[in-house]
């Protein structure tokens, strides 16, 4: 014990929170690369903060959420936490975040498109560096000449491009691949049938004809064999990258990888639902930097400067051009290079038809309520109307239990 203890204590570097500015993030590798470049630029531009050890720590999305809760509970954690805006709801209710207006002047906040800001009870709990995270239709131009604009045309294309070339009864090429397990892929169609997940009072609105219509439409694709029988995200991604699917429904994080895989792709809004005349409405979300309520006062100035830098107009333009994401900064959106980029243009076209993801904590219960119903219908275990009824019951019950 006497031998081990000094060894353990000696090997643990003591972290001086007053001289350390840490960002916890859940960025993908390309975002991390960009972050490191922008951090290096920040260090050069702000020699007055040279004494601070500024660095980032990467977590997976779920780990980031649980780790931050645990750390902030003990009045610790990073200075800034970065991730999709939906994690801000629970964090702010738990009292773990500092409203941005307490750190930065109002002019810094007014730069942003107001709909992209995570505002709860009148306070801004984060500043976005990009907006999107939205699902879009991605077509493999080697298999389809023109991207369908409505579901009737689209279904015809899907039937034509689903092929069993070796005659073993299993399709070797699919019309469409997408994640059949996560309800995030159900949401656009819920909008396409005229529904939405909750009302303005954050009460679930899942047991509706719109939900039944959306579930019927998606399960119909599976029953016809136009999508693989069992398809999670990695499988859908792999099939599409291998060039064995005409379409995939996926977000901005994936497009570059498809191009790198040698595919010629076209981006387009998800096709309009012919029977309703409505466009599918994927959920859109900003990715934000939020401020830890318990940051060390000594690091306050450096944290504020870093936050302003990482969400600045220049950084957002750079991110938009390299990651194909849309800026949340109004001035950045007006830049000619952003306006003329075809990928961003297609992305913008889809975002305009999307709806912002509610950032209330009840959304967690909504996802968990929709998941079993969605999976049940796609497995053929539930009818669409039964699934919609169960989703509603579970969502109401889970929200109630969250408050106990």
């Amino acid at each position, binding site marked *: 014990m006497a031998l081990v203890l000094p060894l353990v204590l000696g090997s643990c570097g003591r972290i001086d929170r007053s001289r350390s500015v840490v960002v916890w993030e859940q960025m993908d590798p390309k975002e991390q690369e960009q972050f490191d470049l922008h951090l290096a630029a920040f260090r050069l531009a702000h020699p007055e903060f040279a004494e601070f050890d500024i660095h980032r720590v990467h977590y997976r999305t779920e780990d980031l959420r649980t780790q931050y809760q645990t750390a902030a509970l003990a009045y610790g954690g990073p200075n800034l936490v970065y991730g999709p805006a939906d994690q801000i709801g629970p964090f702010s209710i738990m009292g773990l975040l500092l409203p941005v207006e307490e750190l930065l002047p109002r002019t810094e906040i007014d730069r942003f498109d107001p709909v992209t800001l995570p505002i709860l009870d009148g306070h801004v709990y984060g500043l976005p560096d990009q907006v999107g995270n939205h699902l879009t239709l991605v077509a493999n131009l080697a298999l389809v000449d023109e991207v369908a604009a409505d579901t009737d045309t689209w279904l015809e294309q899907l039937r034509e491009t689903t092929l069993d070339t070796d005659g073993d009864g299993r399709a070797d090429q699919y019309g469409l691949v997408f994640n059949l397990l996560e309800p995030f892929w159900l949401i656009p169609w819920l909008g396409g049938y005229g529904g939405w997940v909750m009302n303005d009072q954050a009460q679930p609105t899942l047991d509706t004809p719109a939900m039944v219509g959306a579930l019927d439409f998606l399960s119909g694709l599976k029953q016809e064999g136009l999508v693989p029988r069992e398809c999670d995200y990695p499988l859908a991604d792999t099939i599409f990258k291998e060039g064995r699917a005409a379409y995939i429904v996926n977000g901005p994080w994936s497009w570059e990888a498809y191009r790198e895989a040698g595919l010629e792709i076209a981006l387009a809004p998800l096709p309009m639902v012919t029977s309703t005349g409505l466009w599918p409405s994927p959920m859109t979300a900003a990715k934000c930097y939020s401020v830890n309520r318990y940051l060390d006062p000594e690091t306050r100035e450096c944290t504020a400067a870093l936050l302003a830098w990482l969400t600045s107009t220049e950084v957002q333009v750079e991110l938009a051009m390299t990651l194909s994401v849309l800026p949340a900064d109004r001035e950045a959106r007006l830049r000619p290079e952003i306006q003329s980029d075809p990928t961003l243009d297609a992305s913008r076209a889809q975002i305009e038809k999307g709806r912002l993801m509610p950032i209330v904590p009840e959304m967690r219960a909504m996802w*968990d309520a929709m998941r079993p119903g969605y*999976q049940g219908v796609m*497995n053929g275990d539930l009818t669409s109307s039964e699934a919609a009824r169960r989703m509603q019951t579970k969502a109401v019950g889970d929200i109630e239990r969250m408050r106990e």
Partner: protein
Amino acid sequence: MSLQRRETKLAFWFLLPVAVVLLGVVAYPFFFNVYISLTNWNMFHFRDPHLIGLRHYLRLFAESDFWMIFGKTFLWTAVNLVFHFTLGLGAALLLNRKLPGRSIYRALLILPWAVPQYISALTWRGMFNSEYGAVNLILAKLGWLGLGPLSWFGGEWSAFSAAVITNIWLGFPFIMVIALGGLQSIPQELYEAARIDGAGPVRRFFSITLPMLKPVLMPALILGTIWTFNNLNVIWLVTDQGLPADKSHILVTYVYKAAFFYYRYGYAAAFSVFIFLVLLLIVQGYNKAAKAGEAY
């Protein structure tokens, strides 16, 4: 001060650091968990939880899913243990013989245990994919046996079976290693004497091997029970958080979800206390059974 008293005092000082560490890392978290279970600590009362008595414990038993998950946890533990012990002991008996290439077999059989559980679980999940997974491709080749491709994660019990198969594969090498060590310490004279007395292989196994292995197998059984009962990784990763539709949960995965997905800390703490009590009863049962066995 007498020598004996001085020695006692010295022993006390030697034990003190360990006692302090145990108090800090075992006793304090345990009692803090019991305290949390009696509060309304959740997302909305993150900084101001207050005592609400036994409400969470009552809620636990009233939830419709609880008894199903409870039963499934026992089934999960029992099936895994039966296979871990049967396969582990069987493999150990084979490897205890003089076989050509024994060390190669031993290394291969230990392999599932050596691979990180996380990687194994995710690999098995891929292998159970209904369309592209190796398991179904093999089943398709055996089509003449009437076995078609299965949608493993499409049904409650098939998903559960997939997790069980994975955990059997992961768990039996542990018992094999333990049993092999025990087998090598059994004096060969006992077997020779039994042979002279005319005892056959079955008699020798039940009268010599099994009783002599009991001191090593009993702790392995207790550990195996606790580990399997509390095995979060395999169910969580293989069934992708409870596929299909949250139906393949066991108690620990259910608690994990309540705590870290719904922020129901008080409720999850109550659940954890319940799991602890169940395991305590099981271990007590094993100990009693072991002591009763020693009486013979």
